């Protein structure tokens, strides 16, 4: 770069040089790039905009011109979906499920992930393989006996029918994620605290866990999104409508009011709003969480 005999384009910022050498071509590439990007932007966003605008339309308006904006901001659809369509109940149920399951998964995964990463433990590999098994098999592998197990211990038709297996089956993922984060911490810190007389609980709670906060936040976001959207498990274990989470409630709501398109659009909007808003606010956490979940477990 520093030599005087460098080609003309080489004085530019290094990162740029490789891409903008043939000037005319670069402009063409830029235009094509944006055309492709904007085309995909439309494909990914249009369904959202269509549903959200339909939530303010009457069923007749929806059928007349799907691309038109609503003629007026009608809130009735949303109101009816909330009360008549029972979304008040479904959302509340989902809040209960998500709070309990996220808390359970995070607490148990932190403890076990920490021990499997940093504490002396006999047969550590055997335990790891057992948890790895849970990461590899799908829910269907245990779905049928689990249904009868929950029935026999009288948890079916209660909130616990989703909460308990909802926590248990997500432990492998949480444990491997947290173990990865704890392994990245310097163990000398724990040793120093032990020399100062701290017991193992204090070492974990006051020294190591605070350092794993980024991992914790990742797990919370990931697990929240997973539980909010979980479908098959509540479909099988939760049959009473009063107990249904919003993912499942939406499907039965759709079945009940198929012809009332305005209300359907409103219900779907309500169902997706909490998680979409959370995504827009915590976007970086979501994306980092998903990426870490894919690459670090």
């Amino acid at each position: 770069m520093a030599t005087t005999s460098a080609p003309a384009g080489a004085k530019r910022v290094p990162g740029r040089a490789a891409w903008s050498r043939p000037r005319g071509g670069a402009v063409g590439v830029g235009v094509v790039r944006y055309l492709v990007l904007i085309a995909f932007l439309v494909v990914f966003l249009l369904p959202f905009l269509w549903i959200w605008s339909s939530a303010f339309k009457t069923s007749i308006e929806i059928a007349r011109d799907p691309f038109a904006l609503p003629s007026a901001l009608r809130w009735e659809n949303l109101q009816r979906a909330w009360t008549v369509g029972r979304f008040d109940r479904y959302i509340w149920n989902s809040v209960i499920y998500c709070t309990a399951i996220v808390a359970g998964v995070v607490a148990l995964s932190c403890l076990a992930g920490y021990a499997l990463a940093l504490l002396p433990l006999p047969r550590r590999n055997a335990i790891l393989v057992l948890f790895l098994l849970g990461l590899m098999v799908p829910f269907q592998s245990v779905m049928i006996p689990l249904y009868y197990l929950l029935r026999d211990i009288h948890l079916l038709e209660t909130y616990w029918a989703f909460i308990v297996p909802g926590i248990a089956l997500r432990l492998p993922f949480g444990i491997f994620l947290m173990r990865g984060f704890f392994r990245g911490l310097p163990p000398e810190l724990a040793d120093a605290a032990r020399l100062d007389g701290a017991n193992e609980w204090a070492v974990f709670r006051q020294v190591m866990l605070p350092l794993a906060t980024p991992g914790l936040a990742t797990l919370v976001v990931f697990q929240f999104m997973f539980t909010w959207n979980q479908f098959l498990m509540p479909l099988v274990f939760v049959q009473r409508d009063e107990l249904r989470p919003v993912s499942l409630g939406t499907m039965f709501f759709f079945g009940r009011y198929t012809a009332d398109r305005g209300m359907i659009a409103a219900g779907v909007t309500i169902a997706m709003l909490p998680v979409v808003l959370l995504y827009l606010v915590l976007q970086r956490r979501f994306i980092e969480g998903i990426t870490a979940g894919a690459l670090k477990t």
Partner: protein
Amino acid sequence: MADIVLGTTARRGGARRHWARYRAGYLFVLPAFLLYAVFMIYPLVQSIYLSFTDWNGVEATKNFVGLANYRRLFGDALLRVSLGHTLIWVVVGTIGPLVIGLLLAVLLWRRPRGFTLFRTAFFMPQVLSSVVIAIVWGWIYNPVFGILNRGLDSVGLDGLSRGWLGDPSLALYAVLVAAIWAETGFVFVVFLAGLQNVSKDLLEAATVDGANAWQRFRNVTVPQLANVVNVVTALLLIGGFSVFDVVFAMTQGGPANATEVIATYTYKEAFTQNRIGYAATLSLVITVISLVASVAFIRLRERGES
């Protein structure tokens, strides 16, 4: 080092020393392990047991029928159909997000103007539940007011308009398109993260050596992404073999089993036909396929890392 020394003293000191040394580890792992053992390992073993019975879920006794359920797998026409659909699903549903996700990640690699807007939009479907995806796309495909047919009509392609989900030859692909729409955002962000680790020096060296854009992509970028590609492919494959949510919410396997996949078939055998024994056998087919795919993936990744 310390580990080894302490280990031997613990063994010499017997159970008490063992407990003193490992107490913290045991107590930390125990809650997770108990819950996991009761609600995951036990049902998993139970699945194998049920597959040797003809239980219907109601009777108190479970009749042992030996390998009858397993023999039945081979003559089951609907299983063959479901497996065929699952295979199509896995292939198309993996390649689709992979290609589109990589394309979008490469286009946004250098963070051009509007980067945040594009990234936000491309990832957004990923946060939706499959029921929401199913309803939204069911509307898009609706023959009466769906935007797909309206769009085709407005550009003069009305000949192509149809009830997409009602046509047995198209329904599976229609559901696949919805799934790809939802899944691409995930692949895209993982590739975007992977691209941050691709060496710009190597790319520039290749440019100086006269490599064109495609050659640089093919021979410099892609090999450095190999690990990320493996991970993403494996996750899509493993998820694909047990796909249930979006298919069930959109078509319930219909019309006329045109979108039946192995997971929807298993669900119906278990919870609408009450053939628990046979359904357990079917669920083991999914289990074995997933296990084989996962183990193959782990081997592949270990080879890639060493």
